[in-house]
């Protein structure tokens, strides 16, 4: 009796001294892993107290709607960056696709070839085709002539912007039927359609990158193209597909944007490449390729969206917002880089 109590107390004391460090260790590990999510949570909680308008369904849906268009592109950009490439030309694709939908539908309907509704559908198909061709061209030059994608797409940013301006003769194109407004401004169960499309794109890209052969080969190609090639993976094909996908998603964004404002202009989408790339990088994807998570990009997007929304609600000067945004991007990248360095060391 006596001995049994003594052993039981001794085990219980040893356990109680052991448990806290283990628990803190596990907690610390998880904290490190989800540091971005935690910062996001802190901002959300702080904002809930700072502004009564923040934590309302309307405002949260608003954040999703505002990020939806750049967001679709960001998921495509995640694939491109994991494959070890980049696409700077997407902003111009956003512009040109809105212009093309407007022009094609306008021309086809005004000349009486097609009724306006069918003409808009043709216009949408045409803009996806054009975007796909731009992506294929980027990928082809990239893989065939080994020109860095940075340079090709920087050039294409200008070329496509120019094309959009020439096509629209510098004026906004507004030949849209009123139902076209549904894509950009409509709601289903009071959820904005762009937000639904964003979530759908997120789900599809997540599925592709995490569960398919193709997704795995994107990681392989970005991690080490030579090893991937020698493993019998068609490196060029993988890269070209990624470059096409990001362009198609840019066209999707462009169509959504022109639907929202019922107009297509060569000035749309300016600087969107930076927002798309920022959210990918904030989400922890490495610009060197091979490392990254689609989920991370989602968090990066929400992070940026919440931040912009919060600053607007707090009436922070728009120009100051740029400074804060820039610094926060840098901070987020530093956090992920430092984590990566720590991981490498251990």
């Amino acid at each position, binding site marked *: 009796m006596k001995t049994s109590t003594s052993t039981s107390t001794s085990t219980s004391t040893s356990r109680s001294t052991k448990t806290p460090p283990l628990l803190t260790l596990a907690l610390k590990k998880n904290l490190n892993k989800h540091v971005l999510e935690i910062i996001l949570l802190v901002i959300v909680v702080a904002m809930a107290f700072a502004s009564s308008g923040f934590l309302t369904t309307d405002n949260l849906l608003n954040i999703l709607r505002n990020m939806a268009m750049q967001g679709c592109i960001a998921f495509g950009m995640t694939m491109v960056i994991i494959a070890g490439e980049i696409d700077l030309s997407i902003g111009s694709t956003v512009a040109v696709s809105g212009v093309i939908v407007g022009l094609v539908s306008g021309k086809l309907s005004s000349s009486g070839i097609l009724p306006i509704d069918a003409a808009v559908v043709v216009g949408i198909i045409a803009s996806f085709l054009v975007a796909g061709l731009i992506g294929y061209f980027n990928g082809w030059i990239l893989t065939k002539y080994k020109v860095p994608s940075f340079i090709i797409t920087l050039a294409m940013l200008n070329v496509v912007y120019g094309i959009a301006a020439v096509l629209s003769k510098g004026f906004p194109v507004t030949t849209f039927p009123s139902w076209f407004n549904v894509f950009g401004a409509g709601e289903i169960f009071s959820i904005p359609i762009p937000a639904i499309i964003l979530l759908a794109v997120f789900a599809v890209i997540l599925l592709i990158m995490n569960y398919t052969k193709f997704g795995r080969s994107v990681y392989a190609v970005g991690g080490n193209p030579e090893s991937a*090639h020698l493993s019998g993976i068609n490196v060029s094909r993988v890269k070209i597909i990624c470059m096409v996908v990001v362009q198609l998603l840019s066209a999707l964004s462009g169509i959504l944007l022109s639907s929202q404002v019922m107009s297509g202009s060569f000035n749309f989408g300016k600087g969107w490449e930076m927002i798309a790339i920022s959210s990918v990088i904030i989400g922890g994807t490495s610009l060197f390729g091979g490392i990254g998570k689609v989920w991370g990009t989602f968090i990066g997007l929400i992070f940026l969206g919440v931040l912009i929304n919060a600053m607007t609600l707090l009436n922070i000067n728009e120009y100051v917002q740029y400074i804060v945004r820039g610094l926060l991007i840098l901070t987020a990248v530093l956090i992920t880089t430092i984590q990566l360095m720590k991981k490498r060391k251990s």
Partner: protein
Amino acid sequence: MPNGRRPLQDGRQPPFPVASYDEAENGEVDHMSTLETNKITKIYPGTVALNEVSVSFESGKVHALLGKNGSGKSTLLKIFSGAVEPSGGQVILDGAPMKFHNPGEAFEKGIATVYQELSLVPGLTVAENIFLGRMPMKGFMVDWKRTYAMAQDLLKDLGVDIPAEEMVYNLSVGQAQMIEIVKAMSFNPKVLQLDEPTSALAKNEIEALFGMIRKLKKKNVIIIYVSHRLHELWEIADSCTVLREGHYIGKAPMQQLTRKDVIQMMFGDVEIRTRPDDLTVADEVVLEVKGLSRRNKFQDVSFQLRKGEVLGIAGMLGSGRTELLKSIFGADSFDKGEIYCNGKQIHTPTPEKMKKAGLAFTPEDRKHEALIQTASIKDNLCMASLDLIAEGSFIRKNIEKEFVERQVSDLQIKVADVNHQVSSLSGGNQQKVVVGNWLNTNPKIMIFDEPTRGIDVNAKQQIFQIIWEQSRKGISSIMVSSELEELLEVCHRILILKDGQISGEFAPEELKIDELYALSMGGE
């Protein structure tokens, strides 16, 4: 000669100590210096890498430091070079205890290390690389005349026949290795650590390197020499220090040891195996290469590979061996010739096509060509077999798991967690991952380019066992190695590739190792 500085040929004083190699002949040898450790210990979480190791190295000698992977020899090198701080014990240089917090401090105290991976800047000249960051100045401008004169001087002193104006990207690996050593020696170090300096070199380059090391010995430098190539130690090393599982095993003059002694010290009891007798070769030809040529690389190469056969290709660096293998596998193009798999010609091969035809290829450069360092062990094991672990487009996690587990257990890959990055594994285990990746494709023909490069003797034996095991299953192999004794041990048949042409065919039983080396190198 104050400060050990020595005027250059034209009488000017260099801005830093320049090594001099004729002092030994002039009888001006400094007092002997020693590098010692006193009960040095390094504990990593979960393992004791070094357990109270006390060793001592004297100057003027080449000290071989031996041990298989995980023996602690790399940790000891890193402690000397300041990259790792010991958990206990001391490093003592010339009687003074040292405490290094980073590589810079060790370097300042006179310990220079030349690593396996070269650190030269390819776009700069030899002289610029040697004096990087400390080129002699004339006002605000670099004094190029002096830079090149000083570099040429150093090169001449060490008997290195490379012009100081040469761009580093024009150099062979062997030449770059020598420049790396010249650079280290330009700091006039007391200790020079050489980590696997010959692992990427051809025989004639090794000779040149050894000539240089022998000159260094006369300069009264402590040379610590790490190599997996046992046979070269008798040529270059004076003493041999062996570590095993973190313990100091012993130190002895090289000439008093036999190959067997050294292996005994490194591994305890291990028998060196020869090819098992039960490996048979069928008549069926699985691969035929006819008149394959690629300009300036190889000409008119023809051979047949039979089912279950292990075919060795003996060739020195620059013989065209890697280029030949890559052309056969479709990774590089060729100008002329035909390749037949199972009697069917394959036109313009690509790795994708050849994989479908049942070929597998493990490249020579594990780090840059075979593995995806950013990916996990698991992903690396299924990289070539993505089509087989998926149904339609989607990866089936259960099949993937099966594939991964099969290779981990069949090849005895030592892993804590298959989700860890592949870069966390030792060289031998990384090589097994490379092989496992290809075995998962159910190949008919395995092509191994230098499968044993940079891995320890035990891991080598395991790789050989794997090759033999495949042969028993009817899978043929082509193996290239610059350690020709391995070919004698492993293969059924050996082709000699010299200057891009097949110059002979032998059974291993017909040849002695020195004959094989002579045939591969030609001339002598």
